[in-house]
């Protein structure tokens, strides 16, 4: 079993041979769905080379890298990070839409930024350090 750290959180998956995942695990970890056209999200599809897919499995590391995103793993190949590439980040920032997120308060209750739509938001970071 491996842990994938992605934009949608932490996902425990059954990985083999690097980060080959079932289509279901790939969808959970990446948000992209395996279809005949390739990996698809919303209306966009990215074709997969035959080397990156077999029998309903996806080489997620290869796929993610093809999107221009960083892929990292620990020495034991047990923990993987599917990062977001610079182009995707800059596109999102240029769009000016405040990126959504869900984080917990001290009590463990999750709060989602987009729930505040309709009000002005002053989003401020701080740290104990």
């Amino acid at each position, binding site marked *: 079993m491996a*842990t994938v*750290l992605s934009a949608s959180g*932490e996902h425990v998956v059954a990985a083999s041979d690097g980060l080959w995942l079932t289509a279901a695990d790939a969808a959970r970890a990446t948000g992209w769905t395996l279809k005949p056209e390739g990996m698809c999200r919303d209306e966009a599809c990215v074709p997969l080379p035959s080397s990156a897919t077999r029998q309903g499995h996806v080489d997620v590391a290869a796929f993610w890298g093809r999107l221009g*995103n*960083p*892929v*990292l*793993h*620990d*020495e034991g190949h047990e*923990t993987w*990070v599917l*990062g*977001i*590439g*610079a182009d995707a*980040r*800059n596109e*999102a*920032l*240029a769009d*000016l*839409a*405040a*990126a959504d*997120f869900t*984080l*917990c*308060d*001290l009590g463990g209750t999750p*709060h989602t*930024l*987009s729930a*505040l*739509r*309709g*009000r*002005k*938001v*002053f*989003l*401020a*970071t*701080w*740290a*104990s*350090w």
Partner: protein
Amino acid sequence: MIVAVAEDSRGTEQARQWIEQAKPTYWSLIDPDHRVAELYGMVNVPQSVWIDETGRIVRPAETAGSTDHFRRMDLKTRTMAPEDQAARMAARKAYLEAVKDWVLTGKHGLAADTARGKQPRITPEIALAHAHFRLGTWLRRHGNDAEADRHLAEASRLHPDSWNMWRQAADLEAVGNAGGPAFWARVQALGDKPYYPPPDLPGFGR
């Protein structure tokens, strides 16, 4: 609404006492992975982003009222000269006044083209740095300190402008390190570059 986010990879451990002291009526959230910093291109705390009612960013990430006066602090007595203290408080007040003006009248919110131009620019190095930081903090959380620290060091190497990454890594080594001698040396190495670049707002003559 104020959304305060603690970029604290130790989770609630150290953030709790500050939040309980503040008794906030607003959202006070914990962000161990520094996700908000990554999403908004932030590099230091305190930084803020202003978001309008439609969910659009009207002021990209900027210093939220802090100044560089602390750099003149007497490190032995940990005190600042009265003029510096006064200037520092005046700057904080000016920033909060600007926020209030915006809430009440919309003033200081930037038009889309202007805001777009002020968004942080993410390089491939910075994007990779965030991935290393994510892995490093996760490995620290799961007891793999040596390997974690290699990734955290790589994150800072790739994104040297991120005080968040460097100071968080120092804090994970030991609470207090983020404000220790290595920190002061790194601040001094800035030379004339600002630690807290001032925002383009009244009261922050640039």
